[in-house]
């Protein structure tokens, strides 16, 4: 059973994560706009590099790891 400190910390963590998520998306939108015509000249865009894919998969790994850790710590 989680204590009061852990319960409060969990809510704060969710709030901070949500705020970060919102800020990242808003930052992308403000800096990139609607479409990519400006920075690609309307030309072909290559598929993402494998390092980008691996970084994304790494983020998923950390995310699922954090969920498991949360279940163990909050048991």
């Amino acid at each position, binding site marked *: *059973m*989680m204590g*009061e400190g852990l*319960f*409060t910390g*969990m*809510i704060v963590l*969710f*709030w901070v*994560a*949500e*705020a970060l*998520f*919102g800020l*990242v*998306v*808003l*930052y*992308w*939108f*403000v*800096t*990139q*706009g*609607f*479409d*990519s*015509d400006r920075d*690609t000249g*309307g*030309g*072909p*865009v*290559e*598929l*993402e*590099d494998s390092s*980008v*894919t691996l970084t*994304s*998969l790494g*983020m*998923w790994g950390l*995310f699922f790891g954090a*969920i498991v850790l*949360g*279940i*163990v*710590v*909050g*048991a």
Partner: protein
Amino acid sequence: MVTQTTGAGLLLVWAVAMIGLSYYIFRRQSVNDTAEFITAGGRAQLGLTTASFAVTWMWAGDILGVPQYVGITGVAGIWMYAAPAVLSSFVVIPFALRMRKLFPQGLTYSEYFIERFGDYAHLVVILVILYTMVLGGVIQLFVGGAVIGGLTGIDANVVMAVLMGVIGIYILLGGLWGSMTTDFVQFVSALVLTLIFVPLLLVEAGGPGQVYDRMVTNLGEQSASFLSMANFSAIEGLFLPYALGLGVWGVVSLATWQRVFAVRRDKTSRFLTIGGIGVFTTIAMYSVIGFVGLAAFTDVAPGNLSIEALGLMPDWAAIVFLLVALMVLGSSVDSYLTAIASLTSRDIYYRHINEDATDDQQLRVARAASIGFAVIIFVATVFALGSFSFVQLLLIGGIGASALVGPLPLSVFWTEASQNRFVSGVVVSQLVTAYLLAASYGVVVSTPSLKLWEIMAIGHLVSTGLTVIVSGVSPDDFRFESIAQERPSVAADGGTEGGDGE
């Protein structure tokens, strides 16, 4: 409770804002051809696409559903609801990258199946996508009619008619650009709910410490299990059916794939990752509503926890909350309506009725379909309100996923998968799952009565197993590069023509 006049005013403000926004993007992005209408030209930027993807996955029902999970199983309800909800974003990544490489000329992912297998497989995929998308719209509108009608006292049918009418008009104007742009505003609104109103509710209830203390007092002996993240008692009833059904529903959802085809090619896995993980944090914040409910009330059913807890907010906050609920609701329904309009234009009209259709003709069909299916979704929801419960609708919506999630990777990675095997896997899986679902509810048949997660698992096993086993007996020898070498009739993917090849 918000008065009918205030409720009508909110609906009017929302309608003017959304239609105005869609008209702006219609003019700004020149949405005058099919590629712009269906895939936003394949050049949408990361922020816009991530926001659109995330808010499409934030269902209005989550505001009721997450507190309900918390009311049933406590803090463990957070991950039991949120983890499956974002599973699709992770699972779809390899297929999305593969599809964008194999089929850069596609406007809908379902068109791939006509190139990979042929007409029959394509028609089967169209049917599955069509009913899952219509059901997705019905589920959202169902919640909208019930919640907004309930909070304002306006007749639910009137609310639903206004919602569908407005959404139909703004999709008619802007297509996917209209959907994604309005989604962005709706995304910001959802952030306001989670970052400002949820903490405000917590403060109204005395702060996290007091909420914790009251929960422990109210729950009594149950507090130990309700305050444990490792409370697995409801895993069969809550987690597994969600993970196996709606949890992977996004993999087959055309709304997901439209955003995959819309975003710049070099940003594909990034928007799915940030969008998916972001949805988890939003859903997790909704759990606070459930905690406040458990702390404030001792005899409220889990399904009513959210409405009762939100009633603790001051009146002005309730009005703003209603507006946010409208935004979140609109984001999902408009995405499904755009998907259906695109499916009708490209997959049904262009691929099967008039292969010589000009781009203008396809665009007209897509726009007509956005209004036609808005009417169909409205009528279906009016019927559903009197015939099904919300949970039943969710379950019926989830079985579509079990038909395609297994065969989809086989069709994009395995050269030996063949049309007849693919079709048999999908069709038999849907029939078996529908039968088992009917039996579990005692509709027409009554045996065998299985748990919901078992039905979903059987659906996945049948669709995947049949495709693998029968294809193994009589294997195909498909050359994937034959698809990528085709010259696109409409350049739609980041300006490229013909793709990268294999």
